[in-house]
């Protein structure tokens, strides 16, 4: 998933259509690793909400896995990666996976079965909308949620994925570097989350009542599994096993680690105590920031990228809180800001010494790359922002977005699903 100017390299050599067993094995393993990230996210988020909402929050991530898996096979993959229509969207020629077979594609991942590329990409299509759920946690109607996810995936994610990764996509052609999805995944979801927080009313009692996280171990469990899965996310994006995958693996781990330390230190310094949740959030922020850069930078650059992620994302979250915005689980601070920082950092630290198919960044003598990166950031940010607004407003009109007050007080677990997360300890 390297975005570089010009036609994808693979198209130059469509003859090489043999499946590599090593590469396929790695991409399948990576796909499994990315799959587990979305339930992991459910635990990361589920641990942060109050106990009356934990099952519902986990459910949101879990059911997205199911929903988008079906959407993708039916038409999502075709919209995102199908034959290009004007640089903006893929056609429906590949709907129902017609023409998506077990031979390698001549465009995407040319040493692995086309379906392996498809299923790896699916995992990204799953986790992106799942990230947004942190913005409207603890108060959205389940039905409205389902419609939102389906619409957002189809009308926001699929086009942006096409722009950046689809052969023929306009951002792809522009030469933006985005190894594993900083723009497509994190900026799009981060700004969708910001819009959701602007459109939806805040949680009852927000800013007055304490909203203590219900289960800190779940937060760490989620963060740990996200970290684990992110190796598939980033190192799998090499679409092959070998040096590039190794490099992506190493910088991913380094950035996550540095950001976890940094965020924890920030909470120690500004909040008085080293926060466990802060360490977990920091790791995620570091993973976010390294995502677009992961195929282009050195381990020492990753240390700095992680440092920046810890500082910027933490401050963004505090700012968000100060503004009284109820992006309940800080999706914007983590993914929006982390994604922007990552995109810029890619423009700063990228070097062809790591990836000959990439480009140099500012610090390696190519100042123009930063501008290209910002263009990609701006485009996906704006598109996601506006698209999310429209979708939410339509849903609010037709079905209503919010549970009513009584349901919110009772908690979504009971109100929306009729199930308590933990057995009532009725003696």
């Amino acid at each position, binding site marked *: 998933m390297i975005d570089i100017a010009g036609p994808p390299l693979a198209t130059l050599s469509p003859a090489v259509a043999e499946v590599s067993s090593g590469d396929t094995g790695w991409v399948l393993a990576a796909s499994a690793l990315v799959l587990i990230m979305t339930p992991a996210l459910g635990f990361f988020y589920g641990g942060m909400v109050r106990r009356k909402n934990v099952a519902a929050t986990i459910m949101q991530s879990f059911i997205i896995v199911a929903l988008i898996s079906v959407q993708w096979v039916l038409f999502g993959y075709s919209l995102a990666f199908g034959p290009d229509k004007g640089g903006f969207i893929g056609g429906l020629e590949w709907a129902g996976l017609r023409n998506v077979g077990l031979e390698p594609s001549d465009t995407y991942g040319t040493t692995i079965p086309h379906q392996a590329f498809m299923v790896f990409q699916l995992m990204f299509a799953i986790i992106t909308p799942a990230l947004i759920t942190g913005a409207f946690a603890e108060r959205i109607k389940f039905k409205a949620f389902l419609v939102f996810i389906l619409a957002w995936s189809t009308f926001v994610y699929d086009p942006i994925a096409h722009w950046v990764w689809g052969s023929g996509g306009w951002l792809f052609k522009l030469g933006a570097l985005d190894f594993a999805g900083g723009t497509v995944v994190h900026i799009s979801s981060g700004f969708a989350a910001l819009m959701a927080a602007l459109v939806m009313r805040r949680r009852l009692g927000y800013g007055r009542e304490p909203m203590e996280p219900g289960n800190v171990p779940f937060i760490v469990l989620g963060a740990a599994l996200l970290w684990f899965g992110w190796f598939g996310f980033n190192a799998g994006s090499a679409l092959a096993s070998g040096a590039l995958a190794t490099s992506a693996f190493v910088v991913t781990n380094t950035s996550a680690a540095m950001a976890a330390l940094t965020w924890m230190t920030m909470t120690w310094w500004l909040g008085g105590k080293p926060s466990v949740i802060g360490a977990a959030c920091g790791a995620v922020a570091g993973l976010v920031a390294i995502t677009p850069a992961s195929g282009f930078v050195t381990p020492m650059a990753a240390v700095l990228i992680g440092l920046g992620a810890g500082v910027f994302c933490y401050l963004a979250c505090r700012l968000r*809180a100060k503004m009284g915005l109820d992006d309940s689980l800080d999706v914007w601070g983590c993914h929006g800001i982390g994604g922007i920082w990552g995109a810029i950092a890619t423009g700063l630290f990228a070097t062809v010494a790591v990836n000959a198919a990439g480009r140099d960044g500012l610090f390696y003598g190519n100042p123009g790359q930063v501008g290209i990166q910002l263009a990609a950031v701006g485009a996906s940010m704006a598109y996601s922002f506006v698209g999310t607004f429209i979708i939410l407003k339509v849903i609010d009109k037709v079905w209503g977005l919010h549970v009513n007050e009584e349901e919110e007080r009772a908690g979504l677990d009971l109100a929306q699903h009729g199930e308590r997360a933990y057995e009532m300890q009725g003696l």
Partner: protein
Amino acid sequence: MMHKIEAIIRPEKLENVKDALAKAGFHGLNAANVVGRGVQRGIVYEGRTGERATVDMLPKVKLEVVVREADTERVIDIIERACRTGKIGDGKIFVSPVLEAVRVRTGERGDSVI
């Protein structure tokens, strides 16, 4: 007659008071978790990202000891001493009448069972 002494105390003092009562020969008691509000109107809770909120109900332990009327003052005294820190939130003790006590195991009645 007997008295029920209900003391609403800081959870971290339970161990203390239990020991003190046992030393003075008062073994029978029970305790439960409650939340309470008093002069101590609450503490500030600082969230993940610095947002503040006031928690007005704080966790306390409610200790109940049923004693002979004649022991009431002594028990109050023991509890007071074991639980006092001098800071707001030390808690309250309430005394109320108990008309009868029964030991389930034997069916015995009266203040000998406590």
